[in-house]
């Protein structure tokens, strides 16, 4: 409705992207299909080496809606596994987080994330909140393989993409059953549910709070160098149980990859 040429331009870019296998059961124009196309369009236009969009709730719990490629998806997941990174920070503050020079040797910001992202070739990372009015729904992240500040107009372009990401989520909700997430979005986020289930289990096993349970899950994932989703899957399947004293956790019973 508003005269917003930047937003219109982004929609045209999104429309020009071909659908891919990431389309959800609602097709190339469903929430996930459109968001995937948005991420790929953003790679070309921002430009970026990779783009990802996540939704987050008030407590910072989240899910990746779409990413431009598997490497970008992994970088999004990494932030959740470690519990730190530009995405979390942008969501918490409601402001863009711009890191034109990611260098773990010179900065102590996000020590775990910065080190692993750097190893994967990330040299600059930017995170823009995806919001409607004051309500924050998630974050759009993009990264580059060469350091450097955003060029003039770069942040405005990123914000236009974030605005359209919000439109996609809102339009998707319009088609959803009231009280539920849109089908496609539900499917896309379901991979993460095992982590939340494991979180509930650890909370009971250790008699700790929900937040503390997630900290423990993340610590185990970090120490064993496994994605948090894998650790969670083992816990839910009964193959692993976290102990009150982490030093008593030996090799998980019957762990498939030894």
């Amino acid at each position: 409705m508003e005269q917003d040429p930047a937003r219109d331009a982004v929609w045209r870019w999104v429309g020009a992207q071909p659908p891919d296998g990431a389309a959800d059961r609602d097709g190339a124009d469903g929430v996930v299909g459109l968001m995937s196309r948005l991420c790929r369009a953003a790679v070309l236009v921002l430009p970026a080496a990779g783009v990802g969009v996540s939704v987050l709730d008030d407590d910072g719990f989240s899910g990746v809606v779409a990413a431009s490629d598997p490497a970008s998806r992994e970088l999004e997941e990494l932030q959740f596994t470690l519990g730190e990174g530009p995405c979390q920070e942008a969501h918490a503050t409601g402001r863009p987080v711009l890191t034109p020079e990611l260098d773990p040797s010179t900065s102590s910001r996000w020590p775990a994330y910065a080190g692993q992202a750097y190893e994967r070739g990330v040299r600059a990372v930017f995170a823009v909140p995806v919001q409607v009015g004051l309500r924050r729904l998630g974050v759009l992240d993009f990264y580059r393989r060469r350091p450097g500040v955003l060029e003039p107009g770069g942040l405005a372009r990123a914000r236009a993409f974030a605005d359209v990401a919000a439109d996609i989520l809102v339009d998707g909700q319009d088609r959803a059953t009231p009280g539920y997430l849109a089908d496609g979005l539900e499917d896309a986020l379901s991979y993460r549910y095992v982590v939340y289930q494991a979180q509930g289990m650890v909370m009971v096993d250790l008699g700790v709070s929900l937040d503390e349970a997630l900290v423990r899950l993340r610590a185990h994932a970090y120490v064993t160098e496994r994605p948090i989703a894998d650790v969670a899957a083992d816990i839910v399947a009964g193959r692993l149980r976290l102990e009150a004293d982490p030093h008593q956790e030996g090799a998980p019973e019957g762990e498939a990859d030894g």
Partner: protein
Amino acid sequence: MVVGTARVAEVLVEFADTLVDDYDLIEFLQRVTFRTAEITQADAVGLLLADPKDKLHFMAASDETTRLLELFQVQQAEGPCLDAFRTATPVVNTDLRTASARWPLFAPEAVRSGFGAVHAIPMRLRSQVIGALNMFSAQPGRLTADDVRVVQALADVATIAILQERALRRSEMLTEQLHAALNSRIVIEQAKGALARIHAVDVDQAFVLLRDYCRSHNLKLRDVAQAVVTEPRGVPGLTRD
């Protein structure tokens, strides 16, 4: 038209300024009718909007006497507003005294109420027509083509204000729904895990326990799930006796 172009420009600027700020929609529509009455020297101006079934409803007027309200009401069935709404073109300069053939219900009623002339301007944006602006005068006066253009401009700005407010309300409502649905989903998964451990069952069975508990106690899934994760051993009948 009696008012000069300077006043018209002032009014249009006033309307445009409203759009970029927070505004109360009904108060704004009221102002539209007052300004239109001033600019056209009409005795009464009303604004009608269509519902999703394309039925016109009175929204605001410069004068809300009963007789006027009844004249708006009649136009759900027939009349200049309905014609303007359906054809998306202005219906102007109709002499009410000779309009009984055209509007057998409306025209005599309007004449009985003391009106000689009526005009209706469609409220539209591109291909969408959302209602009509209705002007009544005691004297059968004539709007010139320029007058019609001016009133159409006022109607157009009012249309934009209404559509903008509708879009905003829809956006906000859906955003809150998404936010709540996401929150709910996550806390339910967390509760499933907790219940699975407490009752030594798998997560699917845990969900059945949760759902059955909610049904028999007439509680919302999300609320009970939240209680479970806040105080895992504290939900009577579910996690404690």
